[in-house]
């Protein structure tokens, strides 16, 4: 069953790599409960909110490094290596050391969101630090659920320009997170 799950991830990410955004979204949705399980298993004593912050950090990292996965490879070892790296990193920056075993996802129990899939504070604060137009694009897509075309029309930008803005914004968010928590 575990292997079925991982084969499904590989299939979805392969489709995402081929340009199917819907499959990519399904991939992210499929891995999220499992990654949440990893964070929660390591984060005893960590509130569900802070755990969700770390989960979002991991998701952002997986996203920004998705081109380091090759379609001919299975997803799980790659995903686990990134997850382990970012979880250890996130805890370290919060002043804790955690031990994340080297193996794989086999032991992980998928975790549902805790309390109402909370509005997460960290990400919100980071978005506020982006330059205004990038912040507007990220909020419009993420929070208001606007499409790229709608945003383009409203902000008088081409769709390509909106996507570039989004991409830069996401990269910047990841850099800001690195610095922010360290302070």
């Amino acid at each position, binding site marked *: 069953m575990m292997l079925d799950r991982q084969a499904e991830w590989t299939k979805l990410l392969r489709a995402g790599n081929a340009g199917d955004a819907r499959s990519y*979204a399904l991939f992210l*949705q499929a891995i999220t409960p499992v990654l949440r399980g990893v964070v929660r298993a390591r984060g005893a004593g960590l509130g569900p909110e802070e755990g969700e912050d770390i989960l979002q950090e991991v998701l952002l990292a997986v996203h920004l*490094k998705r081109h380091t996965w090759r379609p001919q490879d299975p997803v799980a070892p790659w995903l686990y290596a990134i997850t382990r790296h970012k979880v250890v990193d996130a805890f370290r920056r919060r002043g804790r050391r955690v031990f994340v075993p080297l193996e794989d996802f086999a032991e992980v129990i998928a975790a549902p969101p805790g309390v109402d899939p909370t*509005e997460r504070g960290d990400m919100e604060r980071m978005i506020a630090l982006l330059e205004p137009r990038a912040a507007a694009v990220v909020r419009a897509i993420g*929070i208001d659920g606007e499409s790229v075309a709608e945003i383009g029309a409203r902000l008088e930008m081409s769709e390509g320009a909106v996507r570039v803005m989004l991409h830069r914004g996401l990269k910047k968010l990841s850099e800001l997170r690195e610095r922010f928590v360290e302070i």
Partner: protein
Amino acid sequence: MKTDQLINTLANDPWPSISPAGLLLRSLPVALAVSAASLALTLGFRHGWLDAMSVPLVALKWFLPLFLGLFGLAVLLRLVRPGANASTLRHAMWLVPAGAMAAMAYAYATTPAAGRWAAFVGESVVPCLISIPLLSLPILAAILLVLRHGAVLYPVKAGAIAGLTAGGLGTAIYALHCTEDSPLFFTVWYSAGIMAVTALGAVLGNKLLRW
């Protein structure tokens, strides 16, 4: 922002167009060309390079650093992919220093005692130690760019291997100029130049390769 909303945001960001290997294929040839052109315009290439290379012991001064660089590139292309196994290849890189040691031992044994010191100090230690790091710099820059695009888990180690690789390739270019043909010279001084680039790579890796 809720996690579901974040996922939706991420799914709107199209897949990047280029893989780390793809970026390497574009950036490395440019860097190699810059280094080779710099050498051609300053010190120049050695006359009769091909003839010199027909002596196996002399050819080593080109092949050893070249192999070091090629091994290094293969290792780095794995280090940029989290979860990929790079350790076998990384250990195989030790073949290059082992080959250099063997060449040095052989040259030591076959060079008459009176000529060893002269062969070891040669006539161009200083240009060698300056040129190798300089010729390696553009290559190191291209490789670090690729590593940043990738996702290395150990920045210092990856940076050091980047330096070793760039040093190897930069030295292979310098060897197109250098006329010191005794392994007593080149195994020592080339290695010293490569180690300097390796140290620089480790320092830069620590600064540039975190994500």
